[in-house]
Each structure stands twice: as structure tokens, then as C-alpha cells.
């Protein structure tokens, strides 16, 4: 009775002190999410500096953030970083988008037609867990080493979590809402777009969040095959030639890039899912 969707928190905040407090919390979380990251890097730097002095372990095992930045700068000058980010981002985005679209489409079909579910489910159970690394040689044989197999690999990796979450989202629609829509004259298309889909959107976003992270794993594997740049390429190269600091450069870049995309996803979700209450925290005003 007294919970309100996130979207309204802002306007509420303009009024009461309480609202104000809630707004601040939200803002902190989103905007100042940077503080913990900064502290994290500072701590890491401190550990590395201490290690540099007392030599607990070989510093190549855990280069200091400053060393990583230096390394990154060095790599950036060769143009590798810019081109890698560009190439990887393109691959991730395209693969991710394809995987998402297919997963949602297949999920809808499986939810709607129990025949499809019946036939597809066990097959997907068999194929779903095939690791990217195992697919790699097969993909090379079938599709060569161009962009197509790379994107396909990322799409495939994206596919399964989104499908699983989509199916769950579709399954958990409140049936009374479907009844309600049907009695109002909604066609199947309407039911899907105006009832089932809005209700499954939160679950789909969870799948997307997970898949986005996995996309980077798939990226590495995909960029093992004949890539000339890309964050995955940097990692494979670093691994092959024992350039631990390059490895860390790529890892940090992946972390930052993921954070950025993940933030965008969350923004989009907050925009699309204004109506959902946030359980625990909205139960009781403090």
C-alpha cells in the first residue's frame, strides 16, 4: 500500500525529508558507485607498494594499478587498446544482441507451444552446457576464423542464461492478468506484448546481466581464433607470452567495460520496469 516504484522516488524526494533520504541513497549507489572502485584500486596499489618494499611475492604476479596504467599507456600508444576495445565491443554487442533476441524468441515459443518445449528442452539441455572452448575447434572447422564464428560463439554463450531466465519470467506471469486481458479482447499478440512480456522483463534483464558477463568469457575464446585485436586477443597473447601486466590491463578494461554496459542495462531496466516494488527495503520505512 505504501511502496512506490523507483521511478517515483525522485519526485517524492523533492517533497519530504524522508523522500530526500531515499533519493540520496539511490544517487549514491548509482553515481558514487565510483568510490568503492577507487578505494579498491587504492588498496590494491598499497598492497603492491608494500610488496615492492618487502617482496612477499614476485610483483609480476600482482602488478600495481599504477604499473598497469603505465602498461596500458604503453599499449595505448601502439593503438592496440583503442582497436581492441573497438573490436571487442563490436563483437560483444552484436553477439549479445543476437543471443538476446534469439533467446527471447525461443523462450516465447517454448512457453507458448508445449510441443516446442517438449522437443527443444532436452536438446538444449544437451547442447547448452557445451563450453566455448570445446566449440572453438568445431566452429573453426565449420565456419573458419572470420567474424562470423566469433559472434556466433558470443551469441551462443549469451543465449542460454537469457533463455533460462526468460522462461522463468514467462512462467511466473500472474495467470489472473492473462485472464483479465483475454476477457478484454486481447489477441495472442496483445497478450504477449502487453502482459507476458512486461511481466517477464525483469527476469529477462537478470538473464541479460548474467549473459553480458559471460559474453566476455566467450570473447576471449572467440578471439583465440585469428583475431588481430580485441581484449580477448590481448589476454591470449599475454598468456602465451607471459605478459602478466598486459593480462591485468585487459582484465581491468573488461571490468570497466562490463561495469559500463551493466550500468546501461540497469538504467534501461529502471526505465522499463518502473512498476516493480523492491521487496525488503520498501516493506518498512525507517
Amino acid at each position, binding site marked *: *500500500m505504501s*511502496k*512506490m*516504484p523507483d521511478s517515483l522516488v525522485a519526485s517524492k524526494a523533492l517533497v519530504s525529508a524522508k523522500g530526500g533520504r531515499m533519493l540520496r541513497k539511490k544517487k549514491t549507489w548509482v553515481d558514487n558507485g565510483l568510490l568503492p572502485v577507487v578505494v579498491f584500486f587504492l588498496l590494491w596499489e598499497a598492497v603492491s607498494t608494500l610488496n615492492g618494499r618487502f617482496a612477499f611475492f614476485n610483483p609480476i604476479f600482482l602488478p600495481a594499478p599504477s604499473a598497469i596504467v603505465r602498461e596500458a599507456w604503453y599499449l595505448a600508444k601502439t593503438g592496440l587498446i583503442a582497436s581492441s576495445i573497438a573490436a571487442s565491443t563490436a563483437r560483444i554487442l552484436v553477439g549479445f544482441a543476437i543471443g538476446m533476441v534469439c533467446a527471447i524468441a525461443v523462450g516465447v515459443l517454448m512457453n507458448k507451444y508445449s510441443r516446442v518445449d517438449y522437443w527443444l528442452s532436452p536438446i538444449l539441455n544437451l547442447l547448452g552446457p557445451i563450453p566455448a572452448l570445446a566449440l572453438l575447434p568445431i566452429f573453426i572447422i565449420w565456419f573458419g576464423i572470420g567474424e562470423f564464428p566469433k559472434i556466433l560463439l558470443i551469441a551462443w554463450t549469451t543465449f542460454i542464461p537469457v533463455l533460462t531466465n526468460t522462461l522463468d519470467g514467462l512462467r511466473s506471469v*500472474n495467470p*489472473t*492478468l492473462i*485472464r*483479465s*486481458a*483475454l*476477457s*478484454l*479482447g*486481447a*489477441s495472442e499478440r*496483445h497478450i504477449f506484448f*502487453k*502482459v507476458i512480456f*512486461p*511481466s517477464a522483463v525483469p527476469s529477462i534483464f537478470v538473464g541479460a546481466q548474467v549473459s553480458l558477463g559471460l559474453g566476455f568469457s566467450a570473447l576471449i575464446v572467440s578471439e583465440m581464433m585469428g583475431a588481430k585485436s580485441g581484449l580477448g586477443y590481448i589476454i591470449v597473447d599475454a598468456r602465451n607470452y607471459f605478459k602478466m601486466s598486459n593480462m591485468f590491463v585487459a582484465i581491468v578494461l573488461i571490468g570497466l567495460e562490463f561495469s559500463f554496459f551493466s550500468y546501461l542495462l540497469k538504467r534501461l531496466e529502471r526505465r522499463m*520496469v*518502473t*512498476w*516493480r*516494488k523492491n521487496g525488503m527495503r520498501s516493506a518498512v520505512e525507517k
Partner: protein
Amino acid sequence: MNYNIKEVRGLQLAVQNVEKGYEGRRVLKNVTFDVDSHEFICILGHSGCGKSTLLNLIAGFLQPDSGSVTVNGVPVKGPSKSRGVVFQDHALFPWYKVIDNIAFGPEVQGKSKAEAMEIAHKYLKLVGLEDYAEHLPDQLSGGMKQRVGIARALASGPDILLMDEPFGALDVLTREMMQKELLRIWLELRPSVLFITHSLSEAVYLADRIMVMKDGDVAGEFRVTMDRPRSNQHPEFIGLMREIQKLLTDE
């Protein structure tokens, strides 16, 4: 609006020897009754006697275990926009604003956005919630949600209106206002109405015919012949109240 069309086709709903159970426990036992076109029927009955179940069968959400539900002789195989439903638990779309919830029906039935909005606003006003058009269902009080549910069902212009305790959460004043509005709409558009209520006086005030259910059976039917608007001082009113009360209280 489409008054004429309905007048012509006239809807005949027939429930025949319907049985329905959940997990082997029979809830409806051999229920039979008809609803004439334009008829206003109220259903009374104790908590758990199967009223909502019956409504769900007529709406097409459930299928009878045996017997049949037909509209103009055609078995009901599923929900249809010709049978509008007001749900006991509102069933508003939580992701749509109040106004969009009401516009849902007209919109999916092919009306233009502007037209649908116009209709929605009309019914929103009718239930006295003009000020809440932009609210989400979750921001409404219990009674307000109920009224939005009613507005939504009305806005899609059904031939039969199936209403499950639609005025249960309303205060006396709002309830009276809503009763009057419902009658006005019914007189204008002439849908058949199946109206579940726990208020005896409400039933007598509204219905052409009152069906009393007991333990999954139709225990009695009462025709109300008074003219509308009805006064609770009218002898027929008082007599009916007493009679039905007795039937309900009898063990």
C-alpha cells in the same frame, strides 16, 4: 453507442448440469440456469460456496468437468471480449497507469489510441477517479483499485458483464454512487449482468433475478419485479429481503 447492434443479437447464456471440482472435491454440483439477454442477475451465497468458480466457468477460464456452458447455443471454449470480467482481486496490470489499464480493452479491440483514451477517461470519470489517471495501481487504495477494475471492464463494452463482488471494498456512499452508475450504464447499453455480492439489499436493489447458491447448488431463485429506482421501503423489497435471508440462514 452500439446499443442497436446488441438489441438485435440478444445474448442467451445457458448453464446446464455443470459440475466442477478441484482435486476431486466437487465444488459445483449440477448447476443449471439461464441468463436472458439484458438480464441483471445477482448471485448470493456463503463464502466458499462456488460463486467465483461459476463465474470463471462462464468467463471461459475453466471448463466444466461435466455439463455445458453455452452462449446462444455455442459452448464457451475460452474467454472472449463479449464477456467482461471484474475480478475479486482486481487483476489490474501493475505496469500500466490507471488510464492505460482502462484503455486496454478499447485499444486491443482496435480502437485508435486517441479514441481509446477518450473512452478510458469517460469511464474513469464515471468511477470518480479523474485525479488518479496517471497513478500506478499500486498507488491506489483498495476501493480505488476495485473501481478501476470496474471501469476497465465497462470500457471494453462487453455483452455480458461478470462481476465478482465488485463493490466489496467500497464505503456506503461510493457504493451507492457506483450502484446507480452501474444501473445507468446497464440501462443504456443493455448488457446481461452476472453480479456476485454479499449484500442482500444490494442484490434486491439491482437485480432482475436473484440466485442464491448453497454448497455448489442453486438453492433458490427470486424474481424482482419492482420498478427502478427501488426503495428499500417498498413491500416487495422488504419481503424479498426477509425471504432470501431466511433461505440463506436455513441450515
